């Protein structure tokens, strides 16, 4: 009986994208979208724990954190911020053209997003490499001797406290990079959907929720950049 009922629903709907347990496409899209928003709330708490740890130590060891932060390459960080903001633009474009059924534009903006995402990871890789060469990766080979505290001539940063800064720097940016990699995976999947003509003006939920995820990952970086790179740059 239930099989027939399900089949009947599918026949009535004539919509292969409509899953059996939803009454109508509208409900399915709303559920997917709400699901992504709720998931992003959990992500907020996930990063929130780290931001909290970071802020506490930043208040506690401000000078040491400023010294450690000043060894980061602000120019590369700023470039990466720009890259991500541009990628947000291409994502918005992708969502818009998916709703208005312009396949070539959709594929173009998805590819542009992917390129910008990869560029971000490449630049991040260069920065990680620099830190590795400078022995700023926390662990047995970490070294931060005789680094001056900015604005306090003659004072040097405590290497242990600087190590906490770099530990948080690597964990926070590292988890952000993991999220970027997942985002790139999602966008490759969206690209194959667009390529196979599976996205229509009626059914483009994947682009919408993939876009939500991408924007969230961007926003995390928008907070990470000033917190990690620009600690004492306001002076």
């Amino acid at each position, binding site marked *: 009986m239930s099989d027939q009922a399900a089949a009947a629903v599918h026949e009535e709907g004539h919509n292969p994208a409509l899953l059996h347990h939803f009454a109508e496409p509208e409900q399915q899209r709303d559920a997917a979208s709400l699901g992504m928003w709720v998931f992003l709330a959990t992500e907020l708490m996930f990063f929130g724990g780290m931001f909290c740890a970071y802020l506490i*130590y930043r208040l506690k060891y401000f000078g040491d954190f400023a010294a450690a932060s000043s060894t980061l390459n602000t120019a590369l960080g700023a470039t990466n911020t720009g890259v991500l903001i541009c990628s947000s633009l291409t994502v918005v474009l992708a969502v818009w053209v998916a709703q208005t059924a312009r396949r070539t534009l959709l594929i173009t903006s998805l590819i542009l997003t992917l390129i910008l995402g990869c560029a971000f990871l490449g630049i991040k890789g260069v920065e990680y490499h620099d830190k590795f060469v400078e022995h700023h990766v926390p662990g047995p080979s970490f070294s931060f001797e005789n680094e001056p505290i900015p604005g306090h001539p003659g004072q040097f940063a405590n290497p242990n406290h600087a190590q906490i800064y770099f530990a948080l720097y690597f964990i926070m940016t590292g988890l952000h990079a993991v999220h970027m990699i997942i985002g790139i995976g999602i966008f490759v999947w969206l690209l194959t959907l667009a390529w196979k003509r599976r996205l229509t003006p009626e059914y483009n939920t994947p682009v919408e929720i993939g876009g939500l995820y991408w924007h969230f990952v961007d926003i995390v970086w928008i907070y990470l950049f000033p917190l990690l790179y620009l600690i004492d740059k306001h002076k």
Partner: protein
Amino acid sequence: MATAVAQPVERENYLNKEYGALSWLFTTDHKRIALLYLASITFFFFIGGFFALLIRLELLTPVGDLVQADTYNKLFTMHGMVMVFFFLIPSIPAVLGNFLVPLMIGAKDLAFPRVNLLSWYLYIIGGVIMLHCMLTGGVDTGWTFYTPFSTAYTNTKIVEAGIAIFIAGFSSILTGLNFVVTIHRMRAPGMTWSRLPLFIWAHYATSIVQLLGTPVIAITILLVAAERLLHLGIFDPRLGGDPLLFQHLFWFYSHPAVYIMILPSMGVISEVIACYTRKRIFGYKFVALSSIGIAVLGFLVWAHHMFVAGISVYAALVFSLLSYAVGVPSAVKVFNWTATMYRGSIHYDAPMLYAFGFLGLFTIGGLTGLFLACLGVDPHVTDTYFVVAHFHYIMVGGAVMGYLGGMHFWWPKISGRLYPEGWAKLAALIVFIGFNLTFFPQFILGYLGMPRRYYQYPGEFQVLNVLSTAGATVLGIGYLLPMVYFLWSMRYGKPAPDNPWNAAGLEWQTQSPPTTFNFDQEPVVTWEAYNYEQLGEFPPEQEARGV
């Protein structure tokens, strides 16, 4: 009631639709996933119970004779980790919640059936890693992972246990996410928020806690693992780190986690009490909103676990006050349930016996929680058996009583068979007696000053410890019994009618067991929740319930 008598051919349902292991391992049916969870959490329950048994056996005598300190430390740690992360947190939401949330709101399935299956696989992966961790040495820090012991000193398998809990945590997040979206978007026409069963309200509140709390423990475990592997210093005072930060992050999840365990149980109790007193729940709106109140306040009280850890007196004062505040929504529930029973037509069936047990034990657990929230009393009883007794009254006396009550109440719907009422009443009684015999002496032990987590104790504490161990044995039998007769009833039990208790709620309006898509036609709700005035009396025993 005639349906109970004549059922010549078993109708097609979610159990007999397909057979074979693959039809279970690749199912996306929320009801089948609930049963997968049921089997897995039962397995972990008995593993956790086995550790508890060894703990109680060791404490039979004042000296360490069965195990020594190192092994004892591992026993209580693994007992805690298995029971908390692999039994209590998934227990009601993943089994009864998974089964009932779509049925109760008139949906065909949860919003994301494949995500639901994924959550079970994540649970299993986490569980297998946890089993491997236990079999190859285990962990000895206590389930709380306190730093810097866990990150700099112990040489047990912290990272592996952490990974197991991290993965199981994602399973919990996905279940919560599915519930929130399902409750928002999948309700049948007419099923307004004010008509939702209180079980749904409780699961909604639980899901909020799962969603907002679990990610924090995930990042905390990640930091502990990184700290342990690379000695970063984040939680190590020798390197400038702060162990208190760990405790703050840990309890930010782990205190609300208690509400993940108790809120669904409260949902079960609301359903059971309404049915077995044949009345609408008194103050429906207050009971519903008190679930949300508990979820919200539950996030604001975590530092009451840290009164003696070195937080400032001012912070302790605030957290003490907020902890008292959680008592308000909890009391709202207890008083409203009691008021529901007043002049109700009460039937003393097994689920109702568990509900009575819950009411008494949860009240004791809650009131002793106020002792612990009190800044004056807490230093005296902190880290003693008083605390152990207190949280077992909530987590076992409350959560597990609700779980068992719910399992009995919905067993006819889940299995299509009736459980044997006489045995069930006996088991409920044994559980209640065994539970109190185990844990009430621990209140006294703690108050007299016996610290928790020691394998030895002064001789004058032996009488109470022997009582407690005897109680644990009785409790163990009480837990084995339902497992035996539930399994028995799946084959030999009397076929259950669609609505054996003449209960309100959409889940009772479809067949037992339901079909894969739950309802033949989408239900339209035109009545309020718990419309027992219209439903009339409880069915006579011999006809409906096969006694």
